[in-house]
């Protein structure tokens, strides 16, 4: 389970680093009040949890109106604004929501989450079921929320590539346990494995030479490339060793880690044994 949050602007209250604050663990935010069933705090939160759910027999407008009235703040101008903002103005009154595509429902879900102009918006797997265009539009909209309106968006997703493209801060939670939290760049740096991708021939000799000096990841060996784990300071020495062994070097480049790598690294020791690492050489051969 991956979860990340966008850093809040300086002038906003924002959640503490989860796990570091006992009050947070008890279910509090830094609004100074307990969160659970607290209308004052809930009024500052907007959420779309487990996809967008609506009354299928009502129109988009009526669904939002029902939610707004439930909240006690029915404002037709706000409904009109939100539906227009999310590109649902044309379908506000027809068809009924049962005729909406998944993307339209997700957009309506976002409108519902923003209904009362909350400070914090919690989005749980909001891109599920969206096509690439829909995901792109969604991402752009969320960025605008954050950059232009100063909202704090908590985004919970298993789509780590999506998370990496959109988020500033990341928290990795597994079975309710916070395993890591911080700015994405910092986390990627902190957990960087100092891996280098070396393209050389003959690869078998290169492997033999390098194995004597640094850890080599045989599973990452593919064709004429292999991955080694080494400090940056070791790289010239490795190049020299390979050259002295008459091995042709085509490139040595740092292997950038992705959020997925980070996630797998962090969770590897805490979950059930992973599937065997694939032998890419064997797969390609």
């Amino acid at each position, binding site marked *: 389970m991956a979860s990340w949050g966008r850093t809040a602007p300086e002038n906003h209250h924002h959640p503490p680093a989860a796990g570091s604050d006992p009050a947070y663990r008890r279910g509090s935010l830094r609004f100074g009040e307990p969160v659970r*069933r607290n*209308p004052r705090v*809930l009024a500052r*939160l907007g*959420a779309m*949890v*487990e*996809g967008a*759910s*609506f*009354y*299928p*027999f*009502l129109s988009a407008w*009526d669904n939002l*109106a*029902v*939610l707004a*009235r*439930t*909240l*006690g*703040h*029915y404002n037709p101008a706000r409904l009109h604004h939100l539906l227009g903002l999310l590109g649902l103005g044309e379908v506000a009154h027809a068809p009924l929501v049962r005729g909406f595509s998944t993307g339209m429902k997700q957009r309506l879900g976002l409108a*519902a989450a923003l209904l009362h102009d909350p400070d914090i918006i919690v989005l749980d797997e909001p891109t599920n079921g969206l096509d690439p265009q829909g995901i792109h539009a969604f991402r752009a909209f969320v960025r605008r929320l954050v950059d232009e309106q100063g909202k704090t968006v908590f985004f919970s997703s298993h789509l780590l590539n999506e998370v990496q493209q959109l988020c500033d801060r990341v928290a990795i939670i597994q079975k309710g346990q916070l395993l890591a939290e911080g700015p994405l760049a910092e986390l990627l740096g902190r957990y960087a494995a100092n891996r280098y991708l070396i393209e050389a021939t003959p690869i078998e000799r290169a492997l033999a030479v390098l194995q004597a000096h640094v850890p080599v990841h045989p599973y990452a060996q593919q064709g004429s490339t292999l991955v080694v784990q080494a400090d940056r300071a070791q790289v010239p020495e490795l190049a020299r060793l390979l050259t002295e062994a008459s091995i042709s070097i085509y490139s040595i480049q740092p292997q950038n880690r992705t959020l997925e790598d980070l996630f797998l690294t962090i969770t590897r020791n805490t979950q059930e044994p992973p599937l065997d690492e694939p032998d890419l050489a064997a797969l390609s051969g």
Partner: protein
Amino acid sequence: MTNPTWQLFRAEWRKTTGNRWLLGCLVGIWPIAALVISVAILALVLLDSRAAAGLRTEPTPWTDVSLFFWAIPNSIIGRLLIVGFAAYLFAGEYQWGTWKNLVTRRGRVTLILMKFLTLGIFMVAAFLGTSLIWMIGRGIAQGIVGGSYPPALTEIPPSYWRQISLQILTAFLSTLTLAGVAALAALLTRSILASVLAGLGAALLDGFLGAALILLYIVTDQRFFPSLYRFSMSYNVDNLLNWANEGEATFVLGNVTVRENAVFDAIVVDPPLPGNGLLLSLGIMAVWAGLFVGLSVLAFYHQDITT
């Protein structure tokens, strides 16, 4: 009006009226039935002179006509439709996954009580509308045949107001109890079908309770068993209607008639068990309604709706 409670009621109302087919089948069916029967009677009096003569010579007072449909919640079909409507209102939110949208916006107790209020208003409005249509339909028929439609507004007997108010109160409490059972089942099972079945089961169980207690009385000869029936919903509904129409209590299980057969002779509780007073019956009905509504609130308050 921007009062938050009023807004919440409007939201509940919009949700309920939004599903027109379901609303028509479960609630609208009563006024529709009254309309159809009224039209049929009109056609009959227009086409059949004997029927018209009968209506002219023996007019039914509109005060009696107005009481007719308030017995709906005590019929099996009435109970089925009430339970179905309650199940739809409460379990529907699980089916559509919409509870999670609501509980982040308002307190749970308020949300659930507003549902009960909406349900009660819908049902009472439906019965009221049905009675009005029935009264007007019969009035038109009386007018066509040239008969009278007594009593005049100035001659309404004082007992009528007691009758109609008790009928409405009984219908409301009976509806609320059934709705409470269905709601509790809906909240626990999260299924419309399961809550309909549970609600019907409870209604049938209440109906069979009398027979079971009679049987225990026969076997044990203990008056304690039939006297338990005075706490049942069925008895108290009957008793309240008796208070409304006759101005007196009905004996506990005293109106049970068992046909003579090879196993049992005609059975009565002898001497008869005196019936509940009006206030006691109202109190017992209120306790039943309050119990199930309260349990529903409790169940919903402690429920994790995200699972």
